[in-house]
Every structure is written in C-alpha cells, then in structure tokens.
C-alpha cells in the first residue's frame, strides 16, 4: 500500500510539472500584457502582489475599458486582420471538408480506375500531398498568382490553405466512412434514392462528429499558418500571424503591446481547445489507430 502512495505522488508531481510547463508561457503572456516597463524589467510575476496591473498594453490596442468605445486605429487594424484570418481559415476548412469528405466517401465505397491508377493509388495520391512541403509550391504559386492577380487576396489564400489541409480531411474521413456498414445505403438505394441522395441524407448525418473533428483540425492549422501567408499577402489579406510576426521583427515595440497582441491572437483557439477538446482528440486519434 505504501509504495502505491509514493507512486501516486510521483504521478501527480509529474502531471503538475508538465501542466506548469504547458500553461506558464500563457500565464506569462497574459500577465505581461498588464505590466508597465518597471514590472517587466524587474521580472515581477504575480499581479496585485508583485505589481499593480495596468491597462497600458490593451489601451494601445484599443481594447481597454477606457478605450473600447472610442475609435482606435490599432483596434481597427487588429480586427480587420482577425476577420481576414477567420474568413480565410473557416472557408478553407469548409471547402476542404466538402471536397475531402466526398472524395473519402467515393474511395471507401466504389472502385475507381483512372488510367493505371486503382483505389489504393488514388488514396496515396491524395495523402502524398501531406509530404509536399509548402516551400516547393510557394514560389511558383506566387508567380502564377501574380499573373492571375490573386496575390494578396483572400480567395488565393483560401485555395492554398484548402490544399494544405485536404489530405488531413481525407485521412480522417476515410476511416469514418469505412466504419459505417454499407447495408445502410443499400437499403436506401433499394428504396429508390440515388447514390448522392443516400450519401447526403443517410451517411452524412451519421458522420457529423467526424466532420466537426476534421473541420476543427483544419481550422487550427489554417489559423496558425504563417509561411504561405507571409509570401502571398502584403496589405489587404494579411492574417494575424503575419501581423504579429512583423511586430516581432520591429525591435521598438513594447513588451506589453506584443503580449496583448499575441495573447489576443491565441484566445479563440484556446477557447476552442477547452470547449471542443473531445473533437480535437478524436480527430487526431482517428489517424493513430488505423496506422
């Protein structure tokens, strides 16, 4: 019994230690956004005990209680970037889920022949896109986009992001569809519905949790993507990571401002992680089990 007790202590000790490692940077960012110069340089950590919180960082962003109702340039800029990021990542994820789930369903239900390519080859063709590093596509796409005047547009970004997450959707959804017994659709087909009718009315409602998982994983990846956005966008379609990165490289920017911006950028995803954790875990687990 005694050894069991020590074991418990070690387990909880390790768990708490890692929780600290995971959460401290977030705590640090959150508190730093309420600090003034003195508190930063003296390395104060705990609000109200070590230092008195101030709204300085948030005031410069236009999000403090005093400035929230007045017009503020930085806030307008921040929200336009925020909106860009949201529109781009949500549309790209939606498009990827739409294309990907159709393709995954087709691959799980029908045998295709496309020249010498059979189903396993087509699956491989889709999944191999995951290996393709974005840097290979970036420069040629940039030049093609210039000719098509798609540089610095949301549409251009959406198309690229859809491509980067499409294999992930297909990977997750293929397992989901394989898990559904074919008899369900056969019954619907006997009743006279078409292939697409059976897909939309019978199959899709069953896999809604899988679709949600895939959508959230795509959303996270697109929201955080920096490399392609940094190359393709310049003024109109700038996303949050690009905005934050440009602030990082300018040395003069104050710590409390940076903390406020990078904190505000992460808040939506942290909320998603807390509320929809089940779906995120499910989406990632789908790939692991099947192998």
């Amino acid at each position, binding site marked *: 019994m005694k050894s069991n007790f020590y074991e418990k202590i070690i387990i909880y000790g390790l768990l708490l230690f890692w929780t600290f490692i995971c959460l401290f940077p977030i705590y640090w960012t959150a508190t730093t956004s309420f600090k003034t110069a003195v508190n930063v340089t003296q390395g104060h950590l705990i609000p109200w005990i070590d230092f008195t919180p101030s709204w300085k960082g948030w005031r410069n962003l236009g999000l403090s209680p005093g400035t929230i109702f007045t017009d503020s340039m930085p806030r307008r800029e921040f929200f336009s970037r925020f909106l860009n990021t949201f529109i781009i990542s949500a549309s790209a994820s939606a498009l990827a889920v739409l294309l990907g789930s159709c393709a995954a369903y087709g691959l799980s239900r029908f045998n295709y022949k496309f020249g010498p390519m059979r189903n396993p080859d087509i699956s491989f063709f889709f999944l191999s896109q995951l290996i393709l590093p974005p840097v290979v596509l970036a*420069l040629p796409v940039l030049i093609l986009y210039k000719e098509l*005047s798609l540089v610095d547009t949301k549409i251009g970004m959406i198309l*690229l992001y859809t491509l980067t997450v499409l294999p992930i959707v297909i990977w997750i959804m293929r397992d989901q569809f394989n898990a559904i017994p074919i008899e369900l659709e056969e019954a619907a087909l006997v009743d006279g519905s078409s292939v697409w009718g059976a897909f939309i009315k019978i199959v899709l409602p069953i896999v809604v949790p899988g679709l949600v998982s895939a959508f959230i994983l795509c959303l996270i990846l697109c929201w955080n993507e920096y490399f392609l956005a*940094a190359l393709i966008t310049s003024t109109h379609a700038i996303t949050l*990571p690009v905005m934050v990165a440009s602030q*990082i490289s300018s040395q003069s920017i104050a710590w409390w401002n940076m903390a406020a911006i990078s904190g505000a950028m992460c808040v939506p995803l942290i909320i998603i992680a807390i509320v929809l954790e089940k779906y995120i875990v499910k989406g990632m687990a789908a790939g692991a089990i099947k192998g």
Partner: protein
Amino acid sequence: MANPNFIDRDPLYVVAPSYINKKTKRIGHLLVWGAFILMFTIGLIQALYTFEKISFGFNNWRPLLYSYIFWAFAIGYSKVLIHGEKGKRALFIFPAVMFIISIVIFPMIFGLYISFTDWNLSSFDGRKFNGLDNFYQMMSDPYYWNSLKNMVYYILAVIVEFAIAFGLALLLNSQIRLRKFFRVSFLIPLMLSPIAVSWMIGKSMLEFRFGPAATLARNLGWENPAFFASPEIARITIMTMDAWTYIPFMMIMLLAGLQSLPKEVLEAAKVDGASKWPLFWKIIFPIMLPVSLTTIVIRIIFKLKLADIVISVTAGGPGGATDTVTSFIYREYRDRSNVGYGTMLSFIYLIIIIIFMTILIRFVSKFLQREA
C-alpha cells in the same frame, strides 16, 4: 473467386440501367469541347495580347482562370451525361482530384521551368534561361548544405519528443483524477500559433536580461544564459520550442493507442504478477509499435516543414546554425528576390524528401510485417 468480375464490383453495388440516350451523350461531349474551345480562345487572345501581337485583351489572366473553372465544371457535369450512374460515382472524387491537379501539378510544372532560369523579381531584365547554372550554384552553396544538415539534427530530435510524449500518454492513461483538466492543459500548446510561441517564449521568456527563463537559469548557476548566442545552444532552443508545440500532438495519438490496448492482455499479465517495468517493455511497448511508428512518421512529415519559429526568432542565425531549408529559401526570396534559384533549391529538397520518406515508409512497413 469464381467470378472474375468480382474484384471490379464496387463495395456499394448499384444496379443501374446501362443504356444512355445517344443524344444526352452528344450534349455531354459538346459541352466539354465547347468549354475547352472557349478556354483555349481566351488563353490565345491573352497570350497574343501579352506578347503585343494584337491590341485588345484583358488586364490580367483572370478570365482564363474563370473559363478554366467553367471547363472543369463542364467535365464534371458531362461525366454524368455521358456515363450515367457511373459518372455520378466518379463525381465523388473528381472535384478533389481536379483541385489538386490545378493547384499542385500546374505550379509544379511551371516551377520546374523556372528552376532552370535566372529570374530576379526585383530586376527589370525578367527571366533568362540559364540551364543548370542554378544547380551548380547550389552544389557550391555552403548555406544550403548547412540547412540540410540542420534538418538532420531537427529530425533526430523527434526521438526525444517521442519519448516525452509517450511518458505523458502513459501518465494520462493511468488511474488519475482530473483527467480532463490535465488533458486539456497538455493539449493547449498545440493550439498556439508558432508565431505567437516565438514571441511568448523565444523573444520574451528567454530574453537575456529579464526573461523568467533566463532568471531561472541564472539562479540555477548558469552565469550567462544566452539562449541564442552559440550555435549548439541556439539549435537546441529552437528544437525545444518546436517540441513544446508539437508534443501534445504525438501525445494524443499515443494516448489513443494506449486506450485501444486489449484489456484482457493487461489483466492477464497483472494476474501473472508482472511488475510495472517488464510489463511496459515486454507487452505494452511491442503492441504499441505500429501506433508509435505512425506517430513518428507523421511528426517527421510536419518537422520537414519547420520554418515559422526559425524565421521569426533567429532568422537562421547565429551563422546559419538554426536554419531549416524552408527558412533558408524564404530568406533567399525575401532578401534577394531570387525566384529561379529558390525554386531549384526547393525542388532538390522535395526530391530528397521523397527519397527519404519512401525509404522510411518502406522500412517501417517491412519492420511491422516482420514483427507481426
């Protein structure tokens, strides 16, 4: 397998009338060719206009894009018209295939061409075909080889990440309270953008003068905690930050594997009196091997794209010690606008990746077969 057609039969078998109206068929063909001719005409006009052979045309190549999309839709619709039920089935994968071909294959072919040119976007000369010059330049570019060498280090770090992630997954899988709380907090680093991480950790916590990590290091006896000054330490710091964001990813996959372990085997082993350590090495680890290898392969795929943190924290420094291939090409483009050379570098990188991944996946699947 008496019936040779058995293999060709779809898992979801549809009895459909094989007869398709000749007229519908003709309309289908007409639609595809009509759309194609429209696209071809627009392309031709624009090409002639660009090369100043004719005086009218469009401002950019957008109309060609629209007609291309129209053509793609026409192909999709005509598939149903021409092949009937079979066409409807093809329509499931057709959009995704078409999408990937348009956004990957076209730019790749175009990229292959520009990789053999000397093309500087900031100069007025435009592009010049220069054969294999980019290739020779690459062979003697120490920074490119250095960044490839760094990628080897970065990939080796995956093993350490894997060990930590496995340990965390075991912890989360043991009998604990507040499991959901721990799982959510362990997951959160994955939600953060590498860019946010590079400020939160790289630029502020590791700040030399008053970052908390530097203060801690000083208190622990490291006199001069400069995390980005010497090449080795800078590389390890970048690895740590990247690991911090991606360990949750590996952990979740491994946890899923642990939770699907057959309960009977574990019970039987416990009844036989197996103690913890041998239980892990003799039973859990071998059963987990397929999941582990999948996790590692996927993690390596993500690792090969590593760039964001490097670009925003160290910009490859000191002396290229933290450069990844992606961040190197990024700077090559940003600083020198050298599209031709950059594309050549990225294509060589792609070839190396394909060879490496093929060997890795072959090796892994061979290994798994022998085990099974």
